[in-house]
């Protein structure tokens, strides 16, 4: 036996009027095909036939509980924080948003972000990023933790690396030998 877990996006539609629903479904059939429809109200045979013909997946007996506290990705503040100063030894930056660091992160400095992280200069310090994406140039002294995993060892050259989190897998790739920013 194999058990897999998926996260599915669901459209919840409350049907009040058959005509109105059919018009909506016809108009948006291409979009709706990509999601699961949770129908509430009176699902008439006409509607059922239409959805089956259009190959739109639907259900009407699914109990969804709205989460009590906000889901994780909503607790991240949106926006970007830009740090245009050297992060020196002994300094600690803690950020919930995405972070762009223009200057060096020196040995003995710590940067922690729940968002994505991009650093344009060398990293000698400690980075913890819980976002989905990083672009950085770590030196051999740097320690890089990405979503709880220490990936410092995987980057042994002092060049830019691109790190992505996709389907719970961490993908590390060399970005370029060196980026010419100017």
């Amino acid at each position, binding site marked *: 036996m194999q058990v897999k877990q998926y996260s599915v996006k669901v459209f919840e539609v409350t049907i009040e009027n058959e005509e109105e629903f059919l018009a909506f479904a016809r108009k948006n059939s291409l979009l709706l095909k990509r999601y699961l429809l949770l129908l509430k109200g009176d699902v008439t045979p006409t509607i059922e036939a239409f959805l089956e013909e259009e190959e739109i997946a639907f259900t009407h007996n699914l109990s969804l509980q709205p989460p009590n506290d906000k889901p994780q990705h909503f607790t991240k503040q949106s926006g970007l924080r830009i740090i245009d100063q050297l992060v020196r*030894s*002994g300094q600690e930056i803690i950020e919930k948003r995405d972070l762009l660091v223009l*200057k*060096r992160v*020196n040995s003995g400095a710590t940067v922690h972000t729940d968002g994505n992280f991009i650093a344009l200069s060398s990293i000698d310090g400690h980075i913890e990023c819980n976002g989905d994406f990083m672009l950085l140039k770590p030196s051999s002294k740097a320690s890089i933790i990405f979503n709880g995993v220490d990936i410092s060892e995987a980057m042994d050259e002092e060049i830019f690396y691109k790190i992505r989190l996709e389907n719970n897998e961490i993908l590390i790739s060399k970005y370029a030998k060196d980026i010419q920013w100017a």
Partner: protein
Amino acid sequence: MGIVFAVISGKGGVGKTTTSANLAIGTAIEGKKTVVVDFDIGQRNLDMILGLENRVVYDITNVMDGDATLSQALIKDKRQENLYFLAASQTKDKSVLDREKVKKLIDQLKEEFDYIFLDSPAGIEGGFEHTILYADNVIVVVNPEVSSIRDADRVIGLVDAKSHKAKEGERVGKFLVITRIDPDLIEKGEMISTEDILDILSINLLGKVPEDKRVIDASNTGKPVILHESSPAGEAYSRIAKRLCGIDVPFVDVESPEVRGFLQKITGLFK
């Protein structure tokens, strides 16, 4: 109004006191009325390096506590017309320093002197904080070696966070002096190059001082290297002191062994 330079490093033993003593002598030679103050309370040694240990009667704590006036405590150097020295207390510890008293002392010194050098204790505790509190500029002393550079990085960050000027939104001048540069080790790649140090610390370079055995002898005899003839370190300090006095002195390569040999030959000619 005088200019206050705090000489700091974070790490101990990199050459703060040597740098303070030599730069104070150097600016005095250039005609600036200079005072050098030992802030390393409880562990003074600037008096020995300057060769003034037997002249100390009152120290900085006596002045701050009102037991002696500033003019009673200031020691006039016997070699340099313009140089004065204020000793640290050897019997007290750093806890005697207090914000208000430090401010009062520095204000007094600024009225009387052109250049004020404060020799900071190592570390980042109270003594260091009081040294940088009212500084206009800091001179950061590093060795081309990782732990010294990291500690310097830390103290630069603290200057930005804690000094009075920085809190008022003004800029504190930050200058770098690299000491104990060993050309042979740099050539072998065992010492960090000036470019890399500047890249890491990103403050202005004030000068580079080569390793020089005469520094130790100078401490023991109380005659700083800047007063020695044919001392590469002394010449480097003399160039730095001139730069502090607004004289444009080009940087000299003290990192290549050949150039060092060449310099020694030249200085040999004048012996």
